Each structure stands twice: as C-alpha cells, then as structure tokens.
C-alpha cells in the first residue's frame, strides 16, 4: 500500500508512503477520489520523485476535488517538486501549505 488515508468528519489526510509518485503509484492515487473530504490534505513527506504519470494522476484528483467543491492542499513538498508543480499549473488547484497552518481547518 502506497497511501495511508486518515479520515475525520470534515477532513481527509492522504499520506503518500512511497518515495516515488509515478506510473506505479498513479493507479492508487486515482482510486482515492471518492474518499476526499471538504478539506483534503496530500502529505508528500517521503516523496523524492514525481514524474508526469504521477502528476497526471494528481491533476485528475485535484480537478475532481474542485468539481466537487472540495479544497485540496499539499504539505511537505520539496523545492524541486514545488518548481514542477508550478510548471504544470498544479498550484492553481492544490496550493502548498504548512501542516501547522491547516490544523485549525481540521480541528474545526
């Protein structure tokens, strides 16, 4: 299992547990669209590598979240992945935040 999902009443935290978000993990990411909550947080903690297959899966997820009126945030993103997310316009849909800044949202 490459994802660990933590679910609350109003929030979902998706902890990516692989070091790579690529074609292999893309299928699993696509499978969590029905588990998103009003506030959904993607935790990229151990992720060292993301390629276009992984980005496509993430983009499909964040666009689905937007269609459902849900807010998606990314936490623990490396500087390189921030750059790549900017290149593909990902941040328009999934802003990068600090976990401590999101705590009021998930405790509300």
């Amino acid at each position: 299992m490459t994802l660990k999902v933590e679910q609350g009443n109003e929030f979902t935290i998706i902890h990516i547990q692989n070091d790579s978000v690529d074609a292999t993990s893309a299928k699993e990411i696509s499978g969590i669209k029905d588990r998103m909550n009003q506030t959904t947080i993607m935790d990229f903690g151990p992720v060292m590598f993301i390629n276009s297959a992984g980005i496509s899966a993430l983009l499909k997820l964040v666009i689905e979240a937007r269609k459902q009126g849900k807010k998606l945030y990314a936490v623990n993103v490396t500087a390189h992945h921030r750059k790549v997310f900017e290149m593909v316009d990902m941040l328009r849909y999934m802003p990068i935040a600090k976990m401590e800044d999101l705590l009021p949202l998930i405790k509300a």
Partner: protein
Amino acid sequence: MTSKQGIDESIITPAFNDIDIQIPSDIVFERVVRESAVFVAKYLGFDEERVADLQLAVSEAVTNAIEHGNNSDINIKAGVKFFVKNGQLAVQVSDLGHWVDATAKVETAGDNLDIEERLERNFTRGMGIFLIEKLVDNIEVKSSSQGTEFTMWFNLNKNSQSQSPISFNIELQKAEQNLN
C-alpha cells in the same frame, strides 16, 4: 579560459566514458535508468536541483520510449546512453518508434499548457515532453522508420541558478536511412 568551440576549459570534469544501458520495455524498469541518471549527475558534480531536473527529464524520455516507442513490449529493449561531449552531458534514449511529426510535437509541447484540456485528451505524452523542454539545455531528435534517438543535453558548467533558453535540433530521416 575558453576554447575555439566556446567551451570553458577551466571546468574540471571527472573522467568519464560512455555508459550504455538496455532495459526491457516494461515501465517497472524505467526506475533502473532514473537511478543511474542520479548517479551520473552526482558523479559529474551537478547540484541538487540539477540532479533532480536530470532525473525527471530522463524518466520522461524513457517512459516515452517504453510506452510509445516500443509499445510496452517487454521483448524489445529501450536503449539509454550517457556520454560527455563539448562540455555537456548527453543522455540519448532510443526506441523503435517513429515520430512522424516530431517537429510539431516538440515545438508545441510548451504552448500555453491548458492542463484541464490536456487531461481531457489524456495528453500525458505532451506533458512529459513539456517537462523535458523546461528542464534540459538542448534537445536533439533523430527519427526514421528504423526508430528514434532522443538526445537531451545538459551543460556541465551550469548550476540551477543560471537558466538559458533551450534549443532544438530535430532531424526526420528518410525511411530508408538507418539510425546508425
């Protein structure tokens, strides 16, 4: 000190000889090349950001070769060659596919990326090329009915802070010509 070719010869490059890797065309083996690219980039003294850039660009090129060039046929090998020439690291990825419209594919890859539209079209190959275009210094494509050689060039005397415009050299060979 600069040579006639415009190469800064004051840059000391570690001794390097060509590295050739052949992988079966199954996406699980893409990682073999990706990890090799990290090793080569670190060996040649790339900074952390450039190592990550090279790793991603190589991953995208190899994924294209496996999935589109060789149709994920595990019996066909995708080739990857690392070599240093004229102050640049080249990563040459070869497959059996033929880019009928290579010029259009590369030149339009970065055009106003409308991500939602691309996703609706399932245009992930375009995203891969778009990323490569952003991350490398030069791209060279040679394609014929015999196969495709896609070469990415990375300047050795460059760090992640100094960005320069990319250039392309695309050559569509006649069907009867061999890549070699």
